């Protein structure tokens, strides 16, 4: 009789009370460890490369723009440092798990051989006792009966001893499996960001501007974490090297900062801000929470491309239509008392710089178009499938953003209203995204 009992194996029982070994391949997991270590090396290379580039520029580039760059580079290097540390922590955990798995599998395998041998011995002894019992039933001579009784007793003892041994092997295997399960839990906590092998409170805690708080549900590998989830898309806005300029009306006299809306309003914007709109729309089209909208979004973009008359001289028509729609928005906002009247005098002030603005705007348009085209080509080569029409739209909007600004805002507002009417989590995600776009272009 085997008394190993239920081993409580996560892998399920087998062999009549003997636990199954844990599944998985230590060899393949060791390969993963090497990959994680390599990824940590890569992030450290990013950090060192950024610091090296900053060092080369320290003497040759100075001023406000240079300071903005150095702040971005330093922050990004810290992010890479934090990410590298997360990779190292996870590599250490996976490596420890691989060793624990290898030990559990080999030890349980060894005990299984002994267990099977003991079970065979028990069965053999029990069979022998049964055979002897049959002979005893037909025996007539007292001496023969005594001899058979002794043999039966011996066989039964052998069977009991074998069963006891088998039970012991099963219990040992169960203990090995329990130790492994506990180890697995510890290593899993590292991968999920609860604890670290060396006792630190959470992955990347000592490093990086976005170090996770203790107990955060998952390492962010340098990304900010909110509510247990990493937040992609934040880094480019913070560390992408965009130079903050503040309020263009009151503090800067730079061409290209002419604003159609007063900066005091939430949805106010300027032609230059269309760059932000491009980034936001690109994000909208390539992933994130609204990925499921991809099909509909793709059709919408294709429709917008056609509406914009790309390549067919439709820009003037769009400009006219956009101006009408934009005027309607302004009118509605004014009726709600949300458009300060001081914007008029500011527009007049800017009009005096018209020639310089036109020249700078033309240069900007050319650069925007080229940069957008190049960036989108890189994205496409990187394997990101852009929705139909998005590339053409972004290049067009990048080069001639001012023309489409009113039209674009009107479209966004219309889309937001439609989504608000539809309701549901996807619609809410879309509304959230559009609000983000409007907010981004309102600075």
């Amino acid at each position: 009789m085997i008394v190993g009992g239920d081993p409580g194996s996560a892998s399920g029982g087998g062999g009549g009370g003997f636990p199954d070994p844990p599944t998985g391949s230590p060899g393949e997991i060791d390969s993963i460890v090497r990959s994680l270590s390599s990824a940590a090396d890569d992030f450290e290379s990013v950090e060192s490369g950024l610091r090296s580039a900053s060092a080369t520029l320290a003497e040759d580039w100075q001023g406000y723009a240079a300071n903005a760059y150095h702040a971005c580079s330093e922050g990004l290097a810290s992010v890479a440092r934090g990410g590298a540390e997360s990779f190292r922590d996870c590599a250490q955990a996976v490596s420890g798990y691989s060793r624990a798995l290898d030990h559990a599998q080999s030890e349980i395998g060894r005990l299984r051989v002994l267990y099977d041998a003991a079970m065979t011995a028990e069965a053999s002894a029990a069979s022998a006792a049964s055979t002897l019992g049959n002979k005893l039933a037909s025996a007539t001579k007292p001496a023969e009966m005594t001899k058979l009784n002794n043999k039966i007793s011996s066989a039964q003892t052998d069977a009991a001893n074998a069963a006891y041994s088998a039970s012991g092997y099963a219990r040992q295997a169960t203990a090995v499996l329990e130790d492994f399960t506990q180890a697995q839990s510890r290593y899993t906590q590292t991968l999920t960001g609860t604890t670290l092998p060396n006792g630190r409170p959470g992955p990347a805690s000592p490093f990086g501007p976005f170090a996770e708080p203790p107990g955060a549900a998952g390492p962010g590998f340098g990304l900010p974490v909110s509510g247990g989830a990493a937040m992609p898309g934040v880094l480019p806005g913070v560390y992408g090297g965009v130079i903050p300029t503040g309020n263009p009306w009151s503090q800067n006299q730079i061409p290209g900062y002419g604003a159609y809306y007063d900066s005091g309003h939430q949805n106010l914007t300027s032609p230059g801000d269309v760059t932000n709109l491009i980034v936001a729309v690109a994000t909208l089209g390539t992933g994130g929470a609204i990925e499921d909208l991809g099909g509909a979004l793709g059709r919408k973009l294709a429709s917008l491309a056609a509406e914009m008359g790309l390549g067919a001289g439709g820009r003037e028509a769009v400009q006219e239509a956009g101006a009408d729609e934009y005027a309607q928005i302004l009118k509605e906002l004014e009726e709600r008392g949300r458009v300060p009247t001081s914007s008029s005098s500011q527009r007049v002030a800017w009009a005096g710089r018209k020639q310089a603005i036109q020249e700078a705007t033309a240069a900007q348009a050319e650069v925007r178009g080229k940069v957008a085209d190049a960036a989108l080509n890189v994205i496409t080569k990187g394997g990101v499938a852009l929705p139909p029409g998005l590339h053409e739209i972004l290049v067009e909007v990048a080069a001639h953003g001012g023309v489409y600004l009113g039209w674009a805002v009107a479209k966004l507002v219309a889309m937001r209203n439609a989504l608000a009417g539809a309701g549901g989590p996807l619609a809410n995600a879309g509304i959230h995204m559009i609000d983000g776009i409007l907010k981004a272009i309102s600075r």
Partner: protein
Amino acid sequence: MITPTLAAAAMLIDGTADHASSAGTAVSVGQEAAFGSEPIGVAFGAMCARAQLASTDLEQTVRELSSNVGMASIGYLQTDNGIISIAALQYFGGFKP
């Protein structure tokens, strides 16, 4: 006109983006099969997803930083209010944030 130091720095920065991309490749999906049916495989898969997000974000940010330094090398600055000409900026007296 190109400012060589800035252009060189832009290239150096762009080179580091390849490392970020390589890190993302190292944690590609599907490796959790090595963990069999053990629960840690689920945690590992989620970890890989987060690591890939971070790698992609880091690569994108590094490339943007490189692009913006590269633009500065040819006379344009990317600001939160759009791209501006350094020549025009200097003409109007520089940043006044």
